[in-house]
């Protein structure tokens, strides 16, 4: 890690932490750095910072370092950490809030993962249900990845595991309206 001047971070960091506490419902001050979360984290082997370190960095005000970490994207939301944490720190919820911020500030280290979530939501809004083959193809197109999973397509179709068209439910209007109402309600209450 680079040499860091902790003093210069304080003002912005305090505000950021306050915001993250509101959005995630997690207070980073609850964590007493025991490391139990990281000992049992199934993705720890691939992370650049341990889950415990992410919290420590927040406590110290190293906001950009947190937001540009791979860790927040590699967390697979398995909830093992929260289940075991002696302080009931909801790390998965914290990771969620940090991912949203990282994308807003254009610091996301793993761009594909966030885009994938958007695509899936778009599909639910349009069809009411998800059509997996469709989403895998769209994913590969937009990320300009060579059709990786689509190579599995014929094998999947052979087992008659996917229909050819998305299942559009008749009450898709109800679902679309739900998306719109949620958006309205959330812009009403800041």
């Amino acid at each position: 890690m680079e040499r860091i001047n902790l003093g210069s971070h304080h003002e912005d960091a305090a505000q950021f932490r306050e915001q993250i506490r509101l959005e995630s419902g997690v207070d980073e001050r609850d964590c007493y750095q025991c490391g139990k979360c990281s000992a049992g984290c199934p993705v720890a082997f691939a992370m650049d910072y341990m889950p415990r370190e992410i919290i420590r960095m927040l406590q110290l005000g190293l906001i950009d370092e947190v937001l540009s970490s791979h860790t927040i994207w590699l967390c697979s939301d398995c909830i093992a950490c929260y289940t075991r944490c002696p302080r009931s720190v909801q790390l998965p919820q914290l990771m969620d809030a940090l991912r949203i911020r990282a994308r807003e500030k254009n610091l996301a280290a793993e761009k594909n993962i966030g885009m994938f979530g958007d695509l899936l939501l778009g599909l639910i809004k349009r069809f009411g249900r998800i059509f997996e083959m469709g989403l895998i193809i769209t994913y590969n197109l937009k990320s300009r990845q060579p059709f990786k999973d689509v190579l599995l397509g014929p094998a999947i179709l052979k087992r008659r595991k996917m229909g050819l068209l998305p299942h559009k439910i008749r009450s898709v209007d109800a679902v679309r309206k739900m998306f719109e109402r949620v958006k309205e309600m959330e812009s009403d209450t800041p």
Partner: protein
Amino acid sequence: MRYAYYPGCSLESTGIEYYLSSLAVARKLGVELWEIPEWNCCGASFAHSSSYLLSLALPARNLVLAEKEGLDVVVSCAACYSRLKNAVYEARKSVEVKEKIGQAIGQEYRAQAEVYSMIEVFTNHLGLEKVAQAVVRPLEGLRVASYYGCLLVRPPELAMDDAENPRSLERITMAIGGAPVEWNFKVECCGAFHSTFRPDVGFQMIDRILEDALREGADCIALACPMCMMNLDMRQKDINKMKKSNSYIPVLYFTELMGLALGLAPKELGVNRHFVNAMPLLKKKVLQQ
């Protein structure tokens, strides 16, 4: 026994075996499932990265449909189970949240219907004695590693069994005459979408689960989640290629094993549709009886 049934998106596509076998086993055991008409996607793992309210409203619309019918809800998919149960949990915790959900879906949500996993219906409601009595083809000598993954057992507030050492699936295995394997990875995460976006990470997560099951002498893995199934079943070929190895282990939904024990035909249950072919194993150990 009558329930509202929520299959979820995966069960109409990649998880078709789970759908077929859930319905067939329920029918055979006299559990009536009323599929929620016009159900919508529960929002899975990504709605809450976008909006807390949306992640509650999407599942709640389905729950309202069940409530109108006066039924509790049964869910096969572990991920959908978690989302639906979470909506009930949050709504019961706060009247304000409950009302907001109602506002978002445009109908009153009362949070009255309970949400159960398919497993609980057999272990807690119907009872395993009844299941055992209905067995005509016990899975004698079949060593089964039960895999729960994440969302059936975590977080504890939503869990259908113990978070660290759940036993429900093992109890089902015993009721149908099989032999549960004790192993170390039954609640370890399969990596979800990492196998697609970061195969270097995802494949390792899958591989250590498969390896442990094999090491403990399992003949097959039984599970209850279509996402875990995709990872543990479909990725075995790639993982073997990556490791230049050749070790495979069949992965089945627990309802497929139940169906076989109840005398149903493998095809009827979708058993023939997996990537790792389970038929040779089943022919050797189960079907010749």
